[in-house]
């Protein structure tokens, strides 16, 4: 039987209906897990919702949490579009913080100069760092999944070394291992008084259309998509696959690095030894849920921000572990990855639901 929703155009089905259905199903699967632990899913989800949206400041905090997801999700999605699986967003996030924070605490300039300079430094760091993985792939055929995972470890260790070594980035005036605080001019202004919501959110809102423009309306983006879809045909048409691979990894890394510096300039104002934040890995899920579409990154990032933010309140209120949101996230990805399930549930025709792209499939199978 056909359902009324099968009359929607393809993009609505693929970008709205299927992800929404996946999310609903993801919550359903997690509810089973809650029941299995003897708790009440409706109580848990109510607490999760309150923690994410309705308590004091909760909504602002959800937005705060979604900011890094936007930049990281855009970075991973851009990689997908070029046929690359950048699993190193986590590491590029730290490289971004490192290079940006150095500028932000060493230079003392007006905010209008210092903030853009810090961000540019971060982007340059991320570009070079991820571009290196792209170079290894283009030159030696080293798979980016392997190299970016390795580079993640390198970046953690590098960050820890720089931040804890006197004469390097360690603050000489303190015993705690951290960099000096950034110049007050480098701090991103708060946009909602009494909250932590900073101007990084506005930057995220600007980044989305810019990335869309880059992918869909520039020659660089065209090259990137051509190589992502069919490297053989791109090469035959005179497009350099090697250059495009380096460039795509670089841009992807620059976006991930922006997440790092925005977080530092907006929240911490300092950098301490790196502990895996997990943001970089969640970002893969964000990109998958958004089906690598820049516009769809925003709702996907907000969902992950809300889960992130509501989880601790849920744990406090109902004793359901905050790890539960990992089950939600994981099952959402399973449903996104298996369009056949959704198609069957919604009685859609074959062909109405786009299969996930090869790189996305690869991503799913290795997460």
């Amino acid at each position, binding site marked *: 039987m056909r359902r009324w929703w099968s009359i929607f155009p393809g993009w609505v089905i693929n970008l709205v209906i299927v992800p929404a259905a996946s999310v609903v199903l993801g919550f359903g699967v997690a509810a089973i897990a809650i029941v299995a632990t003897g708790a009440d899913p409706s109580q848990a989800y109510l607490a999760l919702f309150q923690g994410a949206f309705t308590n004091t400041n909760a909504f602002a905090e959800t937005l705060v949490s979604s900011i890094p997801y936007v930049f990281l999700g855009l970075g991973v999605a851009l990689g997908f579009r070029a046929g690359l699986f950048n699993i190193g967003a986590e590491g590029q996030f730290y490289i971004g913080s490192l290079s940006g924070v150095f500028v932000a605490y060493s230079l003392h300039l007006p905010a209008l100069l210092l903030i853009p300079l810090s961000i540019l430094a971060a982007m340059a760091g991320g570009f070079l760092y991820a571009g290196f993985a792209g170079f290894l792939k283009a030159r030696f055929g080293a798979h980016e999944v392997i190299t970016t995972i390795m580079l993640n470890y390198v970046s953690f260790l590098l960050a820890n070394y720089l931040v804890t070594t006197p004469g390097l980035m360690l603050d000489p005036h303190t015993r705690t291992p951290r960099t000096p605080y950034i110049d007050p001019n480098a701090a991103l202004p708060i946009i909602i008084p009494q909250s932590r919501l900073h101007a990084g959110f506005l930057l995220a809102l600007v980044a989305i259309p810019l990335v869309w423009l880059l992918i869909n*309306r*520039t*020659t*660089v983006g*065209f*090259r990137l*998509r*051509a190589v992502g*879809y*069919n490297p*053989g*045909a*791109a*090469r*035959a*048409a*005179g*497009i*350099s696959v090697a250059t495009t691979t380096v460039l795509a990894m670089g841009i992807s890394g620059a976006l991930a690095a922006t997440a790092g510096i925005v977080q530092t300039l907006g929240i911490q104002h300092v950098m301490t030894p790196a502990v895996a934040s997990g943001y970089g890995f969640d970002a893969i899920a964000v990109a998958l849920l958004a089906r690598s579409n820049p516009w769809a990154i925003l709702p996907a990032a907000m969902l992950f921000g809300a889960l992130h933010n509501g989880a601790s309140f849920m744990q406090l209120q109902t004793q359901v572990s905050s790890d539960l949101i990992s089950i939600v996230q994981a099952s959402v990805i399973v449903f996104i990855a298996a369009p056949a399930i959704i198609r069957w549930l919604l009685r859609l*025709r*074959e*062909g109405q639901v786009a299969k996930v792209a090869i790189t996305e499939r690869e991503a799913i199978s290795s997460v």
Partner: protein
Amino acid sequence: MTAALELRGIVKTFGELRANDGVDLAVEWGRVHALLGENGAGKSTLMNVVYGLTTPDSGEIVFDGRPVVIHGPQDAIRLGIGMVHQHFMLIPPLTVAENIILGQEITSPPGVIDLETAGRQVSELSQRYGLEVPPRARIESLSVGVQQRVEILKALYRGARLLILDEPTAVLTPQEIKGLFEIIRNLVAEGNAVIFITHKLGEVMEVADAITVMRRGKVVDHTTPQQSTPADLARMMVGRPVLLRVEKKPAHPGDVRLEVKGLVVHDDRKQVAVDGVDLDVRSGEIVGIAGVEGNGQNELVEAISGLRPAVSGQVLIGGRDVTRRSAKSRLHSGLSVIPPDRHRQGVILELPIADNLVLEDFDQPPFARWILRNLRAVFDYAAALIKQFDIRAAGPAEPTGSLSGGNQQKVVVARELGTNPEVLVAAQPTRGVDVGSIEFIHRQIVDQRDKGLAVLLVSSELDEVLSLSDRVAVVYRGRVVAILEGEEIDRDRIGLLMAGGAAA
């Protein structure tokens, strides 16, 4: 007499597409039954139904007088049905004998494969049908023709009495085709039945006892070689009368536009694939390269396009040495290339037609200014080409993947000819394309030749080379073994040269 196989009302749909739309077919024991139809007519789908590779939506299968349900290839094999696919399913590093017995190993003691007995059984079978194979040779060391014999033996070893051959001649030399036809006759002489799938009329006339013609998922007619002429068959296949030959005026060659001198090129395994080739193509002529696939043609095309480095030798376009130039710079200095593999090199199926039409020029004015693309200019240009090259599509924004094979190929041809090149390298320009599009593409190539284009045509379809070329270069093992002109262009002679026979 009971029929070997009877199909009644087979329907198989893929989404909206009715690949088989109520197909009836009856195949007799002791006969060669040709299944004729254009690419996409539904022949392979029908045979996949018989072999259990897909389940039909409806319809009945009767095998040797008994209604049967076939759930998978195991069922088909148990009944005595064998199938040799368009793409071979052999394991290259294993030997012939190992491949043949794979899945049906004889073991003694238990758990240990008895290669002795297996080898003997294989030899017996191959003698019985004149299917010569070296049982101990590795598959990867064998020619395509021999690999095909291994596939046939594999089916016979499993007890096949009805053998389905899906486009078996596509990869063979004319001599190998003769050998295959002999084997087919031996098989039916022993009372077996053979279903022979093809889109080539000559082969049907030569080998078939009965013919079923399919078009768009339906059976158009049942006939025999005695009752129908090749022209009749072509009309049934296409649904309208077709020209079987390209009409063209004598060539008026001008200056040399493409020159290849002493070119040596390696394949992916660093073996010499092109071995000192000299060639020149003049303005206003079509030079055809005849040869069995895999004799260096692809490497030659890639070296001319700049996708594969020349180990030594030179490539000149319009008199300029481009040997060290990139693919991009060659494409922008008068060279156009129709690559041999449409899906891997020709088009990007996920992108709109318009994007594919500017795949080589998307970053040039008027299609881009600085890094911003000018989509209006792209779409206007695309709309014009779609009209000029008769590409059947909803519009420039339609994804290329939703076009038929013939129209996808027209997108490639339009892109390559739309830039008014000096030199066209056309590799397999009509592979997997319907007859209507073949006619159209051939017409375009010949018309452009008449306007002064230099064309190097590479095709594994000998008929295509013969009907389009003004001169024919025959390649064998990476060398040009002969260049023939005018009266010298003779099918049998070329066939012999292609198989490595010395120049007559």
